[in-house]
């Protein structure tokens, strides 16, 4: 049983994001980390490996050369090997192009489970898992709070408003997990040292049998504008008044907005 965890290198969550003139994220401008939501996918894969349900855990990333750092960090947490798809023609890839490339790489790696985080912290499109599953023609088990493997089937437990659903599909599958799987581990010192010796392969588009033309110039979509969400009006505070006065003022405020 083999799991490939697809990970993305993103700007640190707390970093202020900068955009270039062509409206692409300036990835050199801020500290880069493993997409925090992907860390849960890594944790899920490593827990399955520790339980004996999975023999090998590998990582796959598409990105610029420095995305190799994210793969190395993932290897420090555990797992066996990593694959980086990097190619100048991939700059500016959208979710569709990313999925196309990941699907081609996964065809080559043939894992039982291609595991992903539920979204990336920078774009938050949440499109890639479904797109990869569709392109590969395999079932999608998405938004799992836990991934289980039983013989030739995979299951995810997905939390719902009413409780949870259990989704099951025959292997191979694409699965995505949420932050409910459990806190990602810290890389240990020995893990960091061992990661330097674990195999990492770098592939170009040509290595995957793809040509830039297959990707329609790396994107089917076009970013036309980027703006910050409108700032919320400042919070109104009711302070230093008695409870009766406070209740009256809150009730008036709600009534003025027809909320009560």
């Amino acid at each position, binding site marked *: 049983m083999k799991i490939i965890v697809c990970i993305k290198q993103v700007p640190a969550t707390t970093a202020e994001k900068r955009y270039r003139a062509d409206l692409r994220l300036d990835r050199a401008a801020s500290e880069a980390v493993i997409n925090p939501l992907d860390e849960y996918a890594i944790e899920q894969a490593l827990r399955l490996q520790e339980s004996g349900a999975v023999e090998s855990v590998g990582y796959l990333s598409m990105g610029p050369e420095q995305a190799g750092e994210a793969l190395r960090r993932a290897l420090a947490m555990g797992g066996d090997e990593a694959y980086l798809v990097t190619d100048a023609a991939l700059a500016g890839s959208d979710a569709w192009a990313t999925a196309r490339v990941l699907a081609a790489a996964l065809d080559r790696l043939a894992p039982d489970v291609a595991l992903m985080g539920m979204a990336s912290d920078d774009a938050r499109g949440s499109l890639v898992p479904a797109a990869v599953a569709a392109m590969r023609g395999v079932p999608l088990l998405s938004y799992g709070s836990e991934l289980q493997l039983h013989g030739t089937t995979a299951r995810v437990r997905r939390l719902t408003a009413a409780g949870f659903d259990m989704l099951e599909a025959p292997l191979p599958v694409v699965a995505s997990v949420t932050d409910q799987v459990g806190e990602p581990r810290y890389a240990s*010192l*020995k893990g960091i040292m061992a990661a330097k010796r674990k195999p990492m392969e770098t592939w170009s588009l040509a290595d995957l049998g793809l040509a830039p033309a297959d990707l329609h110039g790396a994107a089917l979509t076009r970013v036309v504008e980027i703006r910050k969400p409108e700032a919320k009006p400042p919070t109104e505070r009711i302070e230093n008044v008695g409870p009766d006065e406070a209740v009256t003022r809150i009730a008036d405020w709600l009534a003025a907005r027809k909320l009560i």
Partner: protein
Amino acid sequence: MTYRLTADHLELRAMVRELAEEQITPRAAAIDASAEFPWDLKELLARQDLLGTSFETRYGGTELDNIAQCILVEEIARADATTSLIPIVQKLGSLPLSVAGSEEQKQRYFPRLASGEWLAAFALTEAGAGSDVAQLRTRARRDGDAYLLTGSKRFITHGSIANLLTVFALTDTDAGGRKGMSAFIVETDTPGFSAPRLEHKMGIRGSPTAELHFDEVRVPAANRLGEEGDGFRIAMATLDQSRLSVAAQAIGIAQGALDFAVGYAAQREQFGERVVDMQGIQFMLADMASQTEAARQLTYAAAAVVDAGDADLAYWTSCAKLIAGDTAMRVTTDAVQVLGGYGYVTDYPVERMMRDAKITQLYEGTQQIQRMIVARQLLQRSGVPVRRSR
């Protein structure tokens, strides 16, 4: 002597800083208030392989160089001085084995210490033998293939929680401390050993400082380090290296206080402006930063000297500990000043850091002892005969 930080050093710093900020900083105030040893953090450090950095890989350690070991201690101490003592004392307690232990002794004990399964401690100081180590009274009497240890130790960091102690005792009372002292590995579950009392301390309150009693504790002769009479030399060789950890701890405490003071001054407003925009505060912060940086660079230089095994390493480690300890005291005191009245109350961490800083001027040789070591080396270098002061 030259040194340069490597990519591995920076990676280690980032790793330990993340761990410390997320897992240790939030615990520091409670550890101080309860004066309870943070067993959970000991487990965390063991799990992350951070208690085995001074042991060779063949014993399960990670064999980091001394600069890396300083960075580890520094980053933990930046969050909490008590917790930084866990790797510091693990190294201190096992250094006598590194210095004088046989291969058989190392194989017997190092794997359990490198994994963090066992804790080690260093039992030298006695009530009447502090700076004047040679006055120790604990005795080790030969009895067949063993020694019987009798006496008391005081101020032994982690003495009550360690599984293994390196104990210094007189095997030849006539020869006195310098020539008649020997070193032993004592497992603390041996009958006759007890740790009846802990000190109530100003700082590093979560780190138990114990009084130890030895009542005819039977120690196999196979647990003697080196030969009879080697004890003083082993103790001094240990301290010459271990005080580097105290320098690193002091720098970490200073950096933690400085970082907090900068953050506080940036949001505190008085007289209609941010406190950090006042030149008087800026000058204080600049002094704190430059002094901390100077102490850090001196400590890394000393670490490189220890790695190289240079003959004058005691000079370097004493210089580093002297400067770093005094810097920690000054910087933490100034951090309290930057916070004003808020610095004096336990709602903010700088008063704890100030209390923690004081110990770095006292243990593993007071600052006065460091000056004696530095001065003796100076005289030796100049060819001036050294006379022992009275």
